[in-house]
């Protein structure tokens, strides 16, 4: 801080008149504003170009199928009949499972690492968790095949079917033939893949919460947990939500790992133990081999559909945030 102060002191030039000074000051700021604005706008430009390309290259299938693309359950490259319904379902289900598993686990771990663990241990563990983000999805897929799938088929699946599967409504989620591959397995693998994002970002954000907040809560007699849950976490709420957005986005777009453990059946089933497929996995699986313009166009339209889903989900999530806004957030 002192270094910054001295630099600033030297930067302020001798006055040539208050007007000129203000003008120069504003100019520097104007340029900075303009530069950063340009880069922010660049993101908009890139995304628009992306959407445009998706739109343009999918026009064959859009004109062939129209809105029916959304609810057609068939995906048949031989008879040129393509529909996105099973993949939309698969994408939503696997992402939901992934978040349901990853968010509590991730947030809890982040709280532990930022509040309870000694700082150096926390740093080391966090560092290692960051590494998990670098593991290629192919390897996650292989690990899924070698570890999670057998586990699901022999142990976890039957356990779920026999316990939760017998409950009235929830039970429908855990029925039927159990192959080891399926929505639940894919969701678990996805959860492992996205949990590092949640932990990493949430932990950093929690660490930035000013000490005074915690101390104030303690001074009022709160237990450690109460101070954490009712004061610290809400303060860091936007950052944590941000990490959840990151996780959601990763889950929606993940291809390799999912495709190796989801069973790849283009079907809509109620049971989480059933095989299915997602949009990203279908595109990745079939794009390189697809020949035939309508086929290609349909695959690209799938990409467009995923974009739409992301759009809607992000919107819903944001509405949710605004709706649950109570006090306690960090002043913007």
């Amino acid at each position, binding site marked *: 801080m002192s270094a910054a102060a001295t630099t600033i002191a030297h930067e302020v030039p001798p006055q040539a008149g208050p007007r000129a000074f203000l003008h120069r000051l504003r100019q520097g700021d104007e340029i900075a504003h303009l530069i950063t604005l340009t880069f922010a706008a660049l993101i908009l430009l890139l995304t628009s170009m992306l959407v445009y390309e998706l739109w343009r290259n999918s026009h064959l299938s859009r004109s062939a199928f129209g809105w029916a693309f959304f609810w057609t359950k068939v995906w048949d*490259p031989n008879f040129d009949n393509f529909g996105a319904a099973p993949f939309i379902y698969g994408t939503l289900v696997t992402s939901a499972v992934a978040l349901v598993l990853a968010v509590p686990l991730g947030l809890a771990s982040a709280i532990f690492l930022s509040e309870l663990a000694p700082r150096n241990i926390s740093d080391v563990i966090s560092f290692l968790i960051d590494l998990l983000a670098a593991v290629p999805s192919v390897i996650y897929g292989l690990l899924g095949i070698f570890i999670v799938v057998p586990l699901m088929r022999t142990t976890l699946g039957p356990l779920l079917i026999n316990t939760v599967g017998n409950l009235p409504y929830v039970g429908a989620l855990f029925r039927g033939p159990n192959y080891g591959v399926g929505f639940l397995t894919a969701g678990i693998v996805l959860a492992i893949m996205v949990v590092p994002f949640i932990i990493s970002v949430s932990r950093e954000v929690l660490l930035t919460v000013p000490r005074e907040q915690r101390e104030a809560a303690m001074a009022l007699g709160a237990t450690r947990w109460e101070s954490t849950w009712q004061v610290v976490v809400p303060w860091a709420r936007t950052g944590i939500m941000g990490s959840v957005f990151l996780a959601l986005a990763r889950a929606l777009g993940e291809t390799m790992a999912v495709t190796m453990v989801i069973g790849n*059946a283009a079907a809509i089933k109620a049971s989480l133990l059933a095989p299915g497929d997602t949009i990203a996995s279908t595109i990745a699986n*079939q794009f390189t081999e697809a020949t035939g313009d309508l086929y290609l166009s349909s695959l690209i339209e799938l990409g467009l559909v995923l974009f739409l889903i992301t759009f809607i989900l992000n919107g819903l999530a944001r509405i949710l945030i605004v709706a649950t806004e109570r006090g306690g957030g960090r002043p913007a």
Partner: protein
Amino acid sequence: MKKALLVVWLMMLTMALTGPRAAAQGGAIKLNAAGATFPTPIYTKWFDVYHTAHPNVEINYQSIGSGGGIRQLQSGTVDFGASDGPMSDDQLSQSKFKILHFPTVLGAVVPTYNIVGVTGDLNFTQKALAGIYLGSIAKWNDPEIAKANPGVNLPSSDIVVVHRSDGSGTSYIFTDFLSKVSDDWKNKVGKANTSVNWPVGLGGKGNEGVTGLVKQTPNSIGYIELIYAIQNKIPYGNVQNAAGKFVKADLASVTAAAAADAKSIPDDFRVSITNAAGPKVYPISSFTWLLIPAQIQDAAKRDAIKDFLKWMLTEGQKYNEGLSYAQLPKEVIVRETKAISLIQ
């Protein structure tokens, strides 16, 4: 901070200059090729051996899939392509330039299974395979399977069907076979394709995925490439051929499939040899092709490609068996050698 920048700059410089070890001194001919995954091992072997013999020619082959190979060839981003299925008439007519097909090796698709209590080879009739993959034959002790395997104790469990989740030449060959031997299949699922709307079953990614699923899942069946089965010592069944005999896939029976119809192979070599006639023929066999543009502007590249093709048809074939690929029959080699002169 300045030190860091210097380090970064130095790294950038070294990385940009990296690789002078390659034959970068003028005269290096770099060719890029893309396509089928099935022949990747033998292609990489060939290109490597050829490079050792001709150090100034670098052929960089990447297996991005047959469809990808065809598309990249048509976009002009690669010098030649490779595909497990021949290009269709439609594709050829849509192409901006003429493309020639050159068969390189033969491969086969075999049925692998994991049945509780069953060891040893099973016989599969054509109807049985089609029925299993259509879903009309649902249990292992179905009469269609049982009658071809007298004395084998087949369980009454449901068959877990495994197919490929990713588009692939292996699926192309398999569905080609199924559409030829079963009208039901042809009507319901359609013709040969790298990806179809599978009536039943789970999908595994790549041969590895299918094998993994079959190994792990009791009472399952899947189809994989022959080399994969051989290299990983995976048990596979015998398939009934057009002559009614149950043949186990091996290099000899696969080459027989190509030799059987050798005379009727069209001049452009685009032919399907599944379900070929003959008692010793393995019915789920196929060529895999290199796709070469008929006109190549760059003289150096053209000569390199032509020379490689000649080499491939003579020296190259010697490496096939070592990697469990079947050799091209002599008649086909002779005709291909003549066809090389079509490349201008």
